[in-house]
């Protein structure tokens, strides 16, 4: 039985797939409905930089035809949104920056290609912190994204547009990227599910690089099952990315229903220190208790170098970004300053005008830590500490299957609250950065509310343990209802 049209947006991707496959509605109808919703609601949120309505409808039409022949990929006809960091052929790919405001990508990122080949319909490109550098979405050239739960709050960042769009039911799924928490923190702050898989699980080809050794593509959805469905398509070896890993992709959806009886859940002593909001801490403990009630065993573990993760990250990530962003020089693409006097002037003004403050801050920091005389003290030292942090996780995963804890130290903060204090802003990623430094899969799932704002439970697994995370999250969601909560103005 088909549901009323106005409720399509509230359905999970899994439910929508059943509706499409069962002939209850068409992809064109669904796409129309979501495009209308975006047109009606996104002014409040600023979640999208580009809406690709014409392309989406044309693709939806094609997908309906394919379905009529009994064919089509596993995501055939299902609408999604791409973070504007993924290159999409023929479409503006801005990376949230003035530098690329005029950039039309001539090619598709591997993630974009794979999702399109599976039949997904791209509704548009989501807003983000400039070059993914930020934890509040306030560094975007296109203005901040608003949190659907409280429009005066930040949705987190850098994948804030994707998270807000999914939370506000503009699309059932949106891609994201996560260098230090950029999928998981906004997921936590918007009450959505976000997974950053193992480093190398998803190809980085066509994903505009911030910090190559930390960047990983993932997805934001409302249910663990939808995330499993999406990641199953996105994951896999890509010969165009030397750091992608040639490891078979398991059937993530198929593995969801197994119980978590006997699952060893690590609880990190250092997670519950003074830095964590007390109300959030309570929610996290309650959700861990839910996992216990489902048969999981909790074990206390130590991550002794956790406090070093933020400083380590803020050496490694800027170092890599300072080099990765050198290609934006005004010569071949992107912003070019007018009437340059000479080459140096062209470089200085193109970059000076094209990049925002946070990007400049990180380029300068990165340039500094790589400079002759400072390299050993900063970059090399940071790499050594990075190994220590990875070793801590390795030891912990000898005893546990999953580490559970907070995703962020507090619920969503007010826009403008931290923007002038970079250190405070950076500390927002303290619980998520470790997984990036160690290359581990991490996931945030909604686990309750504090002051009517969502709180996220952070699950971290061993390398390639995405299945375990999905299973844990799915079991939790079968017994809780937090993921079904919808912000009032977006029901």
């Amino acid at each position: 039985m088909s549901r009323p049209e106005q409720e399509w947006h509230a359905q999970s991707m899994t439910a929508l797939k059943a509706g499409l496959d069962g002939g209850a509605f068409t992809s064109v109808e669904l796409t129309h409905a979501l495009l209308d919703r975006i047109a009606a609601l996104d002014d409040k949120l600023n979640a999208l930089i580009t809406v690709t309505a014409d392309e989406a409808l044309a693709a939806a039409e094609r997908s309906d035809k394919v379905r009529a022949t009994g064919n089509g990929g596993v995501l055939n006809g299902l609408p999604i949104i791409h973070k504007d960091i993924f290159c999409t052929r023929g479409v503006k790919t801005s990376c949230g920056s003035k530098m690329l405001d005029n950039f039309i990508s001539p090619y598709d990122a591997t993630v974009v290609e794979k999702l399109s080949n599976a039949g997904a319909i791209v509704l548009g490109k989501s807003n983000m912190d400039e070059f993914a550098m930020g934890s509040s979405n306030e560094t975007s050239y296109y203005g901040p994204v608003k949190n659907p739960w409280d429009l005066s709050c930040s949705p987190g960042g850098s994948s804030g547009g994707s998270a807000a769009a999914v939370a506000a039911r503009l699309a059932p799924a949106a891609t994201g990227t996560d260098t230090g928490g950029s999928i998981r923190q906004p997921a936590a702050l918007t009450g959505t599910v976000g997974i950053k898989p193992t480093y190398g699980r998803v190809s980085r080809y066509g994903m505009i690089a911030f910090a190559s050794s930390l960047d990983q593509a993932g997805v934001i959805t409302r249910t663990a099952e939808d995330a499993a469905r999406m990641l199953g398509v996105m994951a896999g070896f890509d010969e165009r990315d030397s750091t992608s890993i040639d490891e078979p992709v398991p059937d993530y959806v198929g593995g969801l229903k197994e119980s978590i009886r006997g699952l060893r859940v690590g609880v990190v002593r250092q997670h519950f220190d003074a830095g964590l909001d007390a109300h959030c801490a309570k929610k996290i403990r309650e959700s861990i208790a839910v996992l216990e009630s489902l048969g999981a065993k909790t074990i206390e573990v130590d991550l002794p170098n956790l406090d070093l993760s933020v400083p380590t990250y803020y050496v490694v990530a800027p170092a890599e970004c300072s080099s990765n962003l050198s290609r934006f020089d005004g010569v071949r693409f992107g912003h070019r300053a007018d009437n340059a006097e000479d080459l140096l002037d062209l470089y200085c003004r193109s970059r000076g005008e094209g990049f925002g403050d946070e990007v400049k801050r990180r380029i300068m920091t990165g340039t500094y830590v790589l400079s002759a005389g400072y390299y050993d003290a900063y970059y090399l030292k940071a790499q050594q500490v990075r190994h220590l942090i990875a070793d801590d996780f390795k030891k912990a995963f000898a005893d546990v299957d999953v580490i559970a804890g907070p995703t962020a130290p507090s619920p969503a903060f007010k826009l403008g609250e931290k923007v002038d204090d970079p250190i405070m802003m950076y500390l927002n990623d303290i619980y998520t950065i470790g997984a990036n430094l160690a290359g581990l899969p991490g996931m945030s799932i909604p686990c309750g509310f504090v002051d009517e704002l969502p709180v996220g439970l952070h699950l971290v697994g061993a390398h390639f343990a995405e299945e375990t995370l999905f299973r844990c999250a799915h079991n939790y969601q079968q017994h809780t209802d937090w993921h079904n909560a919808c912000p009032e103005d977006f029901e």
Partner: protein
Amino acid sequence: MRAGWEVVIGLEIHAQLATQSKIFSGASTAYGAEPNTQACLVDLGYPGVLPVLNEEVVHMATMFGLAVNATVQRRSVFARKNYFYPDLPKGYQISQFELPIVETGELFITADGGEEKRIGITRAHLEEDAGKSIHEGLDRRSGIDLNRTGTPLLEIVSEPDLRSAKEAIAYMRKIHTIVRYLGISDGNMQEGSFRCDANVSVRPAGQNELGTRAELKNLNSFRFIERAINFEIDRQIDVIEDGGKVVQETRLYDSDKDETRPMRSKEEANDYRYFPDPDLLPVQMSAEYIENVRQQLPELPTAKQRRFVDQYDLKSEDADLLTSSRSLADFFEAAAAATSAKAQLVANWVMGDLSGALNRDGLDIADSKVSAGGLAGLLTRIQDSTISGKIAKQVFEAMWGGEGTADEVIEAKGLKQITDSSAIEAVVDKVIAANPGQVAEYKSGKEKLIGFFVGQVMQATKGQANPGQVNKILKDKLSG
């Protein structure tokens, strides 16, 4: 060399590796295409693209390392060298810094004094080439051609073991020969696929401490390298003798003015901020892989030269010349194997008439109009006395002109040597009868006239009479 001074030179040679596609992309490396037609998105440094290592370059670098008796590292790392320039699309060059693929090798050159001298090779590392800036013909604007961007280079760094421009050239030629032997570079200097920078310093003879060096860039022919180094040596000695100090700097060689000039000092102030490229995994090689490459190494010039002397009994300098390129050596061996003629004769012909004809027509040995087998056929006919060496030159020219094999030419032109004694006797008799005066002189003791008689007989037989027989018959008859 100016008395009282010692020169210290180290070379950094850039050999372009002869791969079909670029080091980190699938774009073609072919030379001479229209600007920017052989640069793909990876070469252009587009947002989001990633490098993927061309495995062939690892194989080639390994071959080189083994050929110069170096350590081929089981693990090497690509690093980024960061600097801004319009012909460097990414704003960094992918190179190797702390952990190069090849370390501590050596080769031997003939030093100025004629003795064999060991030259250390510090390292050889893989890197990508940059594009080209074009300033000419664009009306105060600059153009950029990115075709060359991402072309694989092997940078070969020598120890400062070279003591003169001549030694530097000898070393460079040796490297040039090796890379072409290995087939890893075409060594074409005009197209820039083999070029070098030279670090040059001078110090008072006997001093241990090195002098301040200048780095000479833009050296793309053996002649220019020699001239640039010699100019620089003189310049530095002049500076010091005039009470000045040599400044550490990069200098460009201007071949038109035959001088070196400092580059703008701005480009000297670069801090390249090297760090391991996070887009590329370290290159890991198994011992088996390296051993496999070693097994498949072709015979190298030095070993081949020695073998040519031993096996073919060639003069050492002839063996040197024949082994200076693999194709020349192969040609010689193929010809020698296909004829009963002495190897030295084969060598003489390859180095003489054949090389002469190639030079005259501007051809490479690979495009020779007379094949190794064809030359062997000709030399066999000298060996079996079908023709004389002199006639053979005539036959060779005809073969070069496409008139057929040696036998076909000999047959068609009737150049077969006359070995029938009675026929030669008849001609000798005629010559004696026609020159009574010379006969009388000969008989009175002027025996040098034998040459005159031989000449007459050969003329009468169009050179086809067997010279040995002619001599013998003439002497017999004249003394009779």
